[in-house]
């Protein structure tokens, strides 16, 4: 008899939908179907049962092909690499649990590494901005229950966070928002007429790369000062009109995404959007939130935060102090500048998501990649260690984009003999201890 697991947490994006229903074969081995998930979330569960999944570690050989090795061999190789390297990049963490991260940090502190997470190429800019000017924000339930003005700026939840609009931001009826979508005015600011823009009541097309100037114009307009005729392609009349309408909100929210974090000026685009939000709080209540993408990337920032005091790009390479400087201790900069000697990737795929020059630099260093599946990075690594899928085959804590933590659920067993991230890292940690007790690799 297949059974249904309810209240399952989706392991894909930062929306962390926690209402999935997964049907599972009675031997706990196979996922038969997923309800409530978006197309991407459903695919994540479906991929679990795909044939041909790698179940044992693999090592690259001289001819470029990979041969299967044991977990013990892979663990030994990894531990030796970490102990030997004078400075290692330990990047990823977004698709694993907070419990696993803690063990990883212990290894980093022992071996001398930099711990960086996917924010570094995603919402790192947002974190810089928050470090600089703070952020007035809220939980997603506040948006559902109160928001009557919603601005999507440089983000496209229709594609990147498919259930965001129905669960929290556009359509749901909440306590003070009984009319749902009808009671909300939706704005979308983007350089493209995205599918999200199509859901908006008003689309403001900004010239690519002019968000900072446009946000500056919004702030200037909010103070009643004069503006040039157009800013970033938007006529000043429109700017005044929107700002006046935003002031009429009872509870307004700005959601922003990589349209701001990746565009020229990066952190400054978010910085000034936060300052606009702050200004709007002189008139009414306003909040702003980053559309965090990669599942538990927020959790990595939290754990690094409480253990070291920095949200990403944490440099414990000297082992006697923790430091953080985006632009120096961030993965892409470290690779660009060849500042590290070895690479340890876990729960992400920089090979697909880092610019090629960074990956060329990476491919010339000893590299270990820990990931449930074959991906671009595994295929340029010395070792690929497969692990159980967090949130599917093993539970663990993950943080939503609004920093709300949720303990995720295991729905099926991992393939036989496949370790979880926690188990694997614990064993690497132990092997590192043994090697260091013996005085190095």
């Amino acid at each position, binding site marked *: 008899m297949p059974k249904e697991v309810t209240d399952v947490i989706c392991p894909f994006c930062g929306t962390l939908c926690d209402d999935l229903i997964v049907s599972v074969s009675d031997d706990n081995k196979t996922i038969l179907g997923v309800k409530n998930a978006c197309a991407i979330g459903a695919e994540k569960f479906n991929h679990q049962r795909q044939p041909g999944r790698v179940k044992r570690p693999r090592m690259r050989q001289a001819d470029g092909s990979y041969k299967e090795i044991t977990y013990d061999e892979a663990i030994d190789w990894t531990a030796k690499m970490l102990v030997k*390297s*004078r*400075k290692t990049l330990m990047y990823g963490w977004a698709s694993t649990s907070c419990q696993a991260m803690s063990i990883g940090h212990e290894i980093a502190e022992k*071996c*001398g590494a930099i711990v960086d997470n996917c924010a570094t190429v995603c919402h790192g800019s947002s974190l*810089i901005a928050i*470090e*600089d000017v703070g952020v007035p924000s809220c939980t997603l339930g506040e948006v559902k229950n109160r928001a009557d003005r919603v601005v999507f700026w440089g983000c496209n939840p229709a594609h990147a966070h498919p259930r965001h609009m129905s669960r929290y931001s556009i359509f749901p009826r909440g306590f003070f928002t009984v009319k749902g979508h009808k009671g909300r005015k939706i704005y979308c600011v983007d350089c493209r007429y995205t599918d999200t823009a199509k859901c908006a009541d008003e689309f403001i097309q900004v010239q690519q790369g*002019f968000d*900072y*100037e446009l946000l*500056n*114009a*919004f*702030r*200037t307009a*909010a*103070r009643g*000062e*004069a*503006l*040039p005729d157009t*800013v970033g392609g938007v006529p000043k009349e429109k700017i005044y009109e929107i700002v006046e309408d935003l002031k009429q909100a009872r509870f307004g929210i700005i959601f922003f995404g990589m349209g701001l974090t990746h565009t*020229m*000026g990066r952190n*400054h685009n978010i*910085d*000034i959007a936060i*300052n606009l939000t702050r200004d709007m709080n002189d008139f009414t209540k306003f909040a702003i939130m980053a559309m965090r993408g990669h599942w538990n990337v927020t959790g990595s920032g939290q754990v690094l935060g409480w253990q070291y005091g920095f949200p990403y790009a944490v440099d414990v*390479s*000297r*082992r006697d102090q923790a430091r*953080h*400087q*985006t*632009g*120096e201790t961030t993965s892409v900069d470290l690779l660009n*500048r060849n*500042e*590290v*000697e070895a690479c340890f990737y876990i729960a992400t795929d920089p090979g697909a998501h880092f610019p090629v020059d960074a990956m060329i630099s990476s491919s010339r260093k000893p590299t270990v990649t820990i990931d449930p599946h074959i991906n671009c990075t595994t295929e340029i690594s010395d070792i690929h260690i497969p692990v159980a899928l967090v949130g599917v085959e093993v539970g663990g804590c993950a943080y939503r984009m609004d920093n709300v933590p949720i303990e995720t659920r295991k729905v099926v067993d991992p393939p036989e003999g496949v370790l979880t991230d926690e188990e694997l890292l614990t064993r690497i940690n132990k092997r590192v201890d043994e090697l260091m007790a013996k005085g190095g690799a």
Partner: protein
Amino acid sequence: MNTVTLTVKKQPELYLECENVNTDAFAGKKAADIAKLGAYQGKEILTLGDFFTITGEAGATAADTKIIVNGDCTKMKYLGAKMTGGEMIVNYACDMYTGSWMKGGKLTVNGDVHSFCGLALAGGEFTINGNAGNYLGAAYRGDWRGMSGGVLRVKGNAGSDVASFMIGGEMIIEGDVDIHLGTHMEGGKIILKGNANRRVGGQLVKGEIYVFGKINVMMPGYKPVGEKEMEVDGTKATFVDYLGDLGERHPKRKGETVYGHLYMKK
């Protein structure tokens, strides 16, 4: 004033953290003692003697000490950082944090510097006879207290995010800058002899920026209020006075709102 000369004899394989290469760390030490000062290369703890030939000896205090560094320093961080007095000359390009958190003395780099140099400069003179990278004279991440004093001069170009969160002191860039000059500035003076790409004086509360060249795109929050004849860093010219950033908060003094000024040379 006693002089210590450092000559690079070995290049680091990774980057070398030279937080002990400054007049304060050297003060009171002879060459042999200086050679024993630590320098991290990743997790490896080495000594300055491993990388430099060291001659001469330091004065009793930082103020009595002069340091000359010869040889390729492009992989050396923190040169002259946190120094409080004396003099230091680096005759080559150097890496990050050069002259950062400097409180006094004179630091000259005869070459380029990388990013995060002159961070939160509080006093002294820092001259770069080459180009500078990003975040020159800016605040450390999260801090609202950027450059607060001293004079920072760049003969060449500088990168982006120059003088962010500046609250005092004077910075002169003789070449061009990229985006974001004087963002969040709340005091002090920036003189830009060349051109700026975009975003000059964004979110500026207080302070003065002088631009001799062109700005590709002007911030919408600036408005011209008149012209002024001025002598700026030895050049007499007419400048158009822009008030701004009008999108930002501004303090009041005796009932009058205090704006920042962006002076564009005509």
